């Protein structure tokens, strides 16, 4: 998948409670969750995010609760890919499992700022920052995990094996 979009930039240790606060977890409707995505740290996000925009975080993105509502809310907001220095492991699995590409780029994440325009090829993990000219390469997914991502998520992958 090739994506070009504007960056919404967040810091280190963005937890799933701020991605989607528990007070909204009495539903699992993706569009309803998207209405409240990031609300506790960024009131502008849900109202202004455009389909194709890109979310970028620092280290340990998605830490805390296992709620899959968090990557679901991000995906339903129109974000096609999340980039971070590192991801918390449950969030990482959840992203792959729901078909939301997650690109881990270590300290290079510091070279991406809010509103930069990125051009991304999720199949190769290549990220080009069109604003600064920097080019980054995300760590590849190991073994059959790439096949899960390629299938668009774990349910499709399992069904294809049925």
């Amino acid at each position, binding site marked *: 998948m090739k994506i070009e979009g504007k960056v919404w930039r967040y810091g280190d240790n963005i937890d799933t409670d*701020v991605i989607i606060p528990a007070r909204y*977890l009495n539903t699992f409707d993706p569009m309803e969750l998207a209405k409240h995505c990031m609300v506790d*740290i960024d009131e502008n996000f849900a109202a202004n995010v455009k389909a194709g925009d890109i979310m970028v975080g620092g280290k340990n993105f998605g830490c805390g609760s*296992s709620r899959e509502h968090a990557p679901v809310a991000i995906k339903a907001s129109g974000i096609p890919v999340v980039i971070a220095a*590192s991801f918390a492991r*449950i969030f990482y*699995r959840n992203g792959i499992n729901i078909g939301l590409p997650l690109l881990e780029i270590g300290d290079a994440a510091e070279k991406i700022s809010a509103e930069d325009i990125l051009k991304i090829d999720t199949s190769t993990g290549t990220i080009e920052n069109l604003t600064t000219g920097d080019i980054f390469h995300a760590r590849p997914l190991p073994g059959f995990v790439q096949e899960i991502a390629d299938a668009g998520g774990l349910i499709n992958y*399992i*069904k294809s094996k*049925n």
Partner: protein
Amino acid sequence: MGMTMSEKILARHAKLANVEAGQLVICDLDLVMANDVTGPPSIKEFEKIGRPVFDAEKIALIPDHFQPAKDIKSADLAKIMRDFARKNKIAHYFEQGRVGIEHVILPEFGIVAPGMLIIGADSHTCTYGAVNAFSTGVGTTDLAVGLATGKAWFKVPEAINVHLTGKKPKNICGKDVILTLIGKIGVDGALYKALEFTGEGVAQLSMTDRLTISNMAIEAGAKAGVFPFDEACELYVSRRVKKSFEPVQADADAKYFSTVEINLSELKPVVALPHLPENVKPVDELGEIKINQVVIGSCTNGRLEDLGIAAGILRGKKVHPDVRCIIIPGSQEIYKEAMRCHWLEVFIDAGCVVSCPTCGPCLGGYMGILSAGERCVSTTNRNFRGRMGHVDSEVYLASPFVAAASAVTGKISTPDEVI
């Protein structure tokens, strides 16, 4: 080469003689667990797969987060799970009045046992490492596939050896151990790794201490927090677990990513300041921090021993006039035992609220939500921004010793200040 406890459990469940860190394995699961927040979306994903449940005896569905239902939508979630449990004859579904907090009742009922491999759609599923299981939190899709196939994929984690020595001082419990550890290694200090506890200090820790410690392994980013099988663990599980089980011990030449030393004798009562569990400081270095609320409960510290600690401090005392103190037994059994021990009387005489078992305020669900600017000392596990209510409220994580003492003084206090 020798294996860690995590490697041994994953190898056994992948039907392999050996595995090593970094290897991808597909494992058979002994238990698949979800709650009323994660269960309903898992059920929806499960239905897309089009298979029956893999084994109704190996599934636990626990309505504890927003139950007894806090609102209509939460009642709908409970209903989806209840209907699914009935239709599929799920062995470990418990209704209100018999249920408790998932990570309190599963060990208490003997549903989790040494050597088991468990996934749960709740990040604190790592709690069962305390009983020598490999147990980890997953999302709803992994859970759905677990319900249908009884399998999950794992990347075998490297392990951090948490080497415990020394004698545990009085007024110190498992919460001080795990907060001190998280303070040392940070909230991503064990990312993608397992914590494995070793050393003579393990014997100093009660099973309640261990359940608290394993419970918060996730707060260091860990995939699991595994304790060895010893006399205390054997005594605990032999009273509860009905089926046979196969414990694991780490090999003497097991390879660890790193070793962290904790001398229990040097521990002091600590708190984690807002808004990360790694912001750990000794209580006696804090200065005066006034509080509005205290919560004693949760999957971290809602066990009988925790309530006993709180009762020991609150006996004959009054909760500070400016403080609401909310006490939440983790299970019906704990509630009843606390009643038999006359601790409920102690709590009510002191001016505490005593609630039925629920996760409630820990995740900002209900039963003690904070207003803007309010501060809470809580025995729960997370102090993220807005975790217990308003985005401008604050949560200070602490042991039941510190929480109960703070309820009396109205400021964050060591137990020495009130005993």
